[in-house]
């Protein structure tokens, strides 16, 4: 039936009513689930010590938190971690699979970054503050769960960032 051709007032009224109902349902579902933002901490209460184990109360704020992961990715780039490691399979020490030799949870990853590991990984605890190690551990933990398509946005974000000690500027 064409719109406006022989449509009675009653039908029009019902059509409008159903439109209003759909709009209301969409708006209320947006309010119920769509606007639930992730918690992030930008205040001065940052961790200053290593995680104490798998039951550390600070873990939930860092594990699976997108903000902390993206900050971790930023520092991963800044500190030049990519010179040896990569997120894809291009370099020997890649994080694209879940095969972490020393464990893939934040406490183990933290230990690997802070104290170093045999085989060339240096200790960073005197060179990088604790909060950044927390964030990088969270970032590395997230890597096996992503792939190049899911990471596309993040890779683009990190593309122009300074890295290591030989970066020569965004403007060339």
């Amino acid at each position, binding site marked *: 039936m064409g719109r406006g051709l022989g449509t009675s007032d009653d039908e029009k009224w019902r059509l409008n009513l159903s439109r209003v109902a759909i709009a209301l349902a969409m708006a209320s579902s947006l309010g119920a689930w769509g606007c639930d933002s992730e918690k992030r901490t930008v205040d001065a209460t940052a961790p200053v010590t290593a995680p104490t184990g798998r039951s550390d109360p600070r873990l939930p704020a860092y594990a699976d938190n997108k903000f902390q992961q993206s900050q971790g990715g930023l520092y991963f780039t*800044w500190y030049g971690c990519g010179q040896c490691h990569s997120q894809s399979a291009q370099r020997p020490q890649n994080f694209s699979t879940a095969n972490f030799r020393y464990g893939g949870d934040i406490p183990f990853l933290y230990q690997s970054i802070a104290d170093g590991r045999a085989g060339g990984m240096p200790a960073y605890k005197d*060179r990088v*503050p604790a909060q950044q190690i927390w964030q990088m551990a969270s970032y590395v933990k997230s890597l096996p769960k992503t792939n190049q398509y899911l990471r596309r946005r993040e890779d683009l974000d990190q593309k122009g960032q300074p890295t290591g000690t030989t970066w*020569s*500027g*965004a403007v060339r």
Partner: protein
Amino acid sequence: MSPAQSALFPAAEQAATQFDVLTLMLWICGVMYLVVLLFVALAIWRGARARAAADSPVTEAADPTLSRALAIWSCVVVLGLTALVVGSFFADRSLAAARDRETLVIRATGQQWWWRFAYRTPGGAWVETANELHLPAGRTARVEVGSTDVIHSFWAPPLAGKMDVIPGHANVLDLTPQRIGWYRGTCGEFCGLQHAHMAFDVRVESPADFDRWLAAQATPAAPQSGDPSVARGQVVVTQGQCAECHTIRGTAAAGKAGPDLTHIGSRRSIAAGTLPMSRGGLEGWIEQPAALKPGTNMPAVSLSPSDADAASAYLLSLK
């Protein structure tokens, strides 16, 4: 003394050109606005007079004077708009015109939330500084602006209009400052939490002063202070956590992510215009950056109070 961050007190050729367009627009639009108000007043007065003369509405006979006035007014509007178009065309042409560029090229990079400035020395090397732009009066500097993260906008109102700072793309802006003094620039495009604390100082100085400043900036760091804690501070800063992001030329600190600190003690402000330069300010910024600038990517470095004090003494001595 003129305000440091006002487009109404131009200190460079480019800002003066734009100020001329603003003045032209103000006069043309101001005069037209007054004429419109005059006609409105006339209409109100005529309406009141007509109502006083008769109780019922009257139909006025066509008034040839009014028709002529309307025709003239239309011509005036077209003339005014034409003047504005011509004025802005010549201003654009003058802003885009090739100037005597000499060899002064400056790279300005916006980063959340500070400015990286790189100068080319007469020897051809690039020398970095941050949050403080020095320009020689009477010479044209070509500023190439770029971004490492999001879109910013380079805006020093007394010098020129805004220039968008786009990641992955270099925009170019010429600045020919004419008036010696300190000015203030800022980020003109919302870029995240600390957009409001992304300012920079601009120093316009005589060419001789500028050459001296650039030569001093190109030298490696040399602490200038008799304070006994400076030596300890140098160890803390150049061999500790600061060195991972900051460069202090002449020492082991060679990080690129943060501002170059080789001559930080000679700058006017800390953390992109957040605090004035002082030893206490530096110490507070090192110990609690997130309390002063929430969201900043500068991490809190956990130092003992005596080490933090020594670090601030060392940084302040880097003139």
